[in-house]
């Protein structure tokens, strides 16, 4: 394996992710935006694989590219697409958006410049096949209570979805 390959794949996946994200906000048709978002999410899954986190990559594909995108598409099908296609693409709030993205950009720049003191570089080279196992051990030993609380949160989500969507309970 030549050392240039990880850099190549990083830039390839980053380009796919960024181009997909730009297409999401520039497409007129919301369905096209959703399809572009799938490309972004899959590219992010590839980046997680490069960070030795196959479990997170699997979650990214199964949950985000699978579940959340189904939800997005159903929401798109529930709203009136014809009206949104006639509207102006960028409304008056783009000033606020510019300010927010500039602030985020400066934050990223600051962390990039001085980040080594805030986040000490700690290259833990864990064997990758053990990643999911390590997640399992951490989840079921150290984070037992948050795990059970997650199931309560899912229960609340079930109840909330049914209450919101059904007319009479």
């Amino acid at each position, binding site marked *: 394996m030549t050392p240039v390959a990880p850099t190549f794949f990083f830039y390839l996946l980053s380009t796919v992710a960024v181009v997909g994200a730009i297409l999401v906000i520039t497409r007129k048709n919301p369905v096209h935006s959703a399809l572009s978002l799938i490309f972004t999410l899959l590219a992010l899954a590839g980046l997680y694989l490069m960070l030795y986190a196959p479990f997170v990559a699997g979650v990214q594909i199964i949950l985000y590219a699978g579940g959340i995108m189904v939800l997005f598409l159903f929401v798109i099908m529930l*709203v009136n697409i014809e009206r949104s296609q006639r509207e102006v693409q960028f409304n008056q709030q783009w000033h606020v958006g510019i300010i927010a993205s500039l602030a985020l950009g400066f934050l990223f720049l600051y962390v990039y410049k001085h980040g080594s003191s805030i986040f000490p570089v700690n290259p833990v080279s864990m064997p990758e096949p053990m990643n999911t196992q390590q997640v399992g051990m951490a989840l079921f030993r150290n984070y037992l209570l948050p795990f*059970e609380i997650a199931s309560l949160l899912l229960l609340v989500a079930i109840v909330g979805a049914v209450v919101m969507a059904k007319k009479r309970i």
Partner: protein
Amino acid sequence: MPQNYVPIFLFVAVVAIAIPATLMIGKLVRPNNPEKAKLMPYECGIDPVDNARGRYTVRFYIVAILFVVFDVETIFLFPWAVQYRALGLFGLVEMLVFLAILIVGYVWIWKKGALEWV
């Protein structure tokens, strides 16, 4: 190791090249004389009756959001399943408590008739 994913990358690359290539070759060699009936969307031989981008009923949304919730539940099963032996009885009880809370919700939506298509 990232090297293990090279076959997956090759698969993606072949698909990304082969599909546009076949479409391009087809565009080059086929005769092109469009006609109204030919360009009509194919719906099993029946003429399309309405716009496909209409609004759908909210029942699809209930099914979708419940699918996402139980999708998340399934994700939590993965790290438990790969460490089943190491976690032992304690992990099994823990998982059963987790599942029991969600099955309460499942029984509730079933009793409420949210899964029925009426």
